[in-house]
């Protein structure tokens, strides 16, 4: 049964009427038009749907909307502030770290999550952290470079 749930997404509050077990991804995409989070597998295996929930990267295709209600959610749409890209977005852009770019939202959000807990990750730590994010175009080396570059930008200029 549909139930009124209030979501806090990118600093805005959204009341939605959805069955409690609907996955957050479909509410974001189909109800709220936040289509930057992608459907890639619906099974938590590819990372294209990753959002931050309470600052931690989560597969939104695996999170029931009811479980996402209590905490602030950040999607790819929420990273750009006053026309200024998040350093991770900027670093991906600078590195040309995407081809078809369908995985890019998930890669960027996951990397933002990583840098929040580990501001200066080694290559091995980035590889470990992004292991659950699939890129089929094979842009992995540039993605790793971009995350390291973003870490440097944050260190020098802040978030």
């Amino acid at each position: 049964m549909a139930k009124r749930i209030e979501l806090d997404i990118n600093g805005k509050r959204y009341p939605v009427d959805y069955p409690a077990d609907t996955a957050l991804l479909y509410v974001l995409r189909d109800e709220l038009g936040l289509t930057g989070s992608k459907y890639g597998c619906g099974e938590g295996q590819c990372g294209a749907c990753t959002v931050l929930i309470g600052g931690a990267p989560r597969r939104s295709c695996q999170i029931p909307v009811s479980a996402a209600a209590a905490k602030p959610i950040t999607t790819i749409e929420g990273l750009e502030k006053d026309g200024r890209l998040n350093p991770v977005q900027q670093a991906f852009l600078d590195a040309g770290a995407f081809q078809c770019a369908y995985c890019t939202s998930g890669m960027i959000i996951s990397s933002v999550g990583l840098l929040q807990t580990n501001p200066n990750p080694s290559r091995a730590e980035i590889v470990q952290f992004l292991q659950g994010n699939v890129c089929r175009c094979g842009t992995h080396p540039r993605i790793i470079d971009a995350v390291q570059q973003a870490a440097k930008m944050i260190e020098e200029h802040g978030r």
Partner: protein
Amino acid sequence: MSEPSGKFVLEPERYEFAAAPMHQFELARRDFFKLLGAGIAVFAIAKDATAEQETAPGHRSFHNEEWPKDINAWLHIGEDGTVTGFTGKAEIGQNARTELAQTIADELRVPFESVRMVMADTALTPFDAGTFGSRTTPTITPQLRRVSAAARDILVEAAAKNWNVAPEGLVAADARVSDPASGRSLKYAELARGKTLAQNLPAEDPVTPAPQWTIAGRAIPKVDGRAFVTGRHQYTPDLRPAGMLYGKVLRPPSFGATLTAYDDSAAKAMTGVFVVRDGEFVGAAAPSADEAQSALDAIHAQWKEVPQIANKEIFSYLKQNAAAKTDDRFRKQRGSVEEGLASAAHRVDATYTVAYIAHAPLEPRAAVAQWADGKLTVWTGTQRPFANRDELADIFHLSESDVRVIVPDTGSAYGGKHTSDAAIEAARLARAAGRPVKVVWTREEEFTWAYFRPAGVIEVKSGIASDGTLTAWDFHNYHSGASGIDTPYVVLNQRTEYHPVPLILRSGSYRGLAATANHFARETHMDALTRAARMDPLDFRLKNLSDPRLRAVMEAAAKSFGWPHKKTQERQGFGLACGYEKGSYVATFAEVVVDKSSDAVRVARMVEAFECGAIVNPDGLRNQVVGAMIQGLGGALFEAVEFENGRIKNPHFASYRVPRFRDVPEIETILLDRKDIPSAGAGETPIMAVAPAIGNAIFDATGIRLNNLPMVPNGLRSA
């Protein structure tokens, strides 16, 4: 799918043929400018066989305007100076949009930022057979150069007329025409103002040679990059036209199953749900994807299934079911293989196999279909918008002019998005619902109901003289395809033959087609011959190669890799492979380390040298080359579709393993820029030599020769 037209033969694989549309129409110029606004338009006319592969004898557009015939590119310069290039090619992550805009900016002498590309929209762009076969760069960049050069001439002539001077003394640069004699200049925008000037290009115009390119040849970042890093770009699954419903299709339990009993009364009773049964097609559209799925779940359907073979039996099946006699097109012979084998000092014979693999594009097949006044518009991620349009017209008994297919920049394809499955499903449901319908395949549907890179068996017999010269080469590919089947090595006695076998699983194009399979067999076999000759693998290849471009990539990669490489640890090995295809050349070197306790194979390093003539965008090219290397690593080591009785047994990312971050080795690419050679495509060839280079390195590390792709799906021990 249409049969080969007989006019050209590109590849003997399915799906890469297209018959030309039936009708020819003349352009009504008035209508063209109504759509695009005033300005100057130039059309390029196909004039040679290569161009014909992309074009067709004209077509009627969605709005029933009559488009020019024999056109495969056009260009419009608006009154505000905006330059728009039009091509039927699609952007699927290969970065064609950027390189094509660069090409126009370069030739027209305008800033890169002032050019935009309209791509893959059957109502707005010229007919195009499809985005495949590494053809965009070699066919469309020259066409866009010619229309751009012609447009520049028109602008210069307009300025000359304006000033009453001879055009020869005028200079076109930086979006202006200038007269150095008088110091006057006019912007292109000023020259285009108020004009509705269209010119069909007979076109022998000289274009700018690569050494003089200023905007092409540079590492310009991907157009609209910001839209991708902010999530603003809308792929097909992101579209939500007003009133849209979500569509789902009831899939049979196995391939070839037919309905024997059917009851949809419970589903039809659901509020807001439209259920369609049309032959074997059953689908539902509803206000949400969940409701559409619930409707399908409520349908009572019984299916009659047919027994089918399993992947474990596939290779013997292929051998047994090959056609007794092959088409002459698929057979090449020179000298006498029998004599060459008899005179050989060493002989090596071997059989190789390749498994079915899946493209697994991260954006699954998807389409949004909308009907209005009996006309159909479909947004879909496809490599073949015009073929999709023709298929939709055929299926729904419409004229081509009543179907419009638009391809939003798409979340990759790799040869996997030639067909119009999701488009047909969405259109059928939308017609029943009377509202727009979106169909997005689930990952399981993508892994099951798409088509696969075909499996194959390859048999090789060969001989060498005592000095390592090849004396005989006998090469037979069963089922997987003929791409890249010809050996680049000099062999006086050789026979190559492709043996078609009727399809088992639905099969089609995959990045590089069968070139990957044929290079795997050939280059693995060359390595085995190297060992028989007790020669260095690089020396052995160079001894038998005459093609200077292939030698050049080999030598460049060898230098960067550090060949011959000294082993620094136990169970470390080095391997190499090379080849050419579709006008581009590749050499790949690999280092592997096999774990002592687990026998896990780790590719530690790959170096690849690639040459495709004059490079249009080295940054985009490097992405394509590295991407192909990583994608190739998956098929080399662990990717395989498992099936039994018409069911796919591993239709998930959890069970179908694709390359992930941990699999990615240290990678180095060397791009050789040959400004004296026309640009070739680069989407496919860089994948070809990856598997044999890795396999040869595994042999070097362990002495174990792996002749089957994937080589180590469960580690070396089970191989």
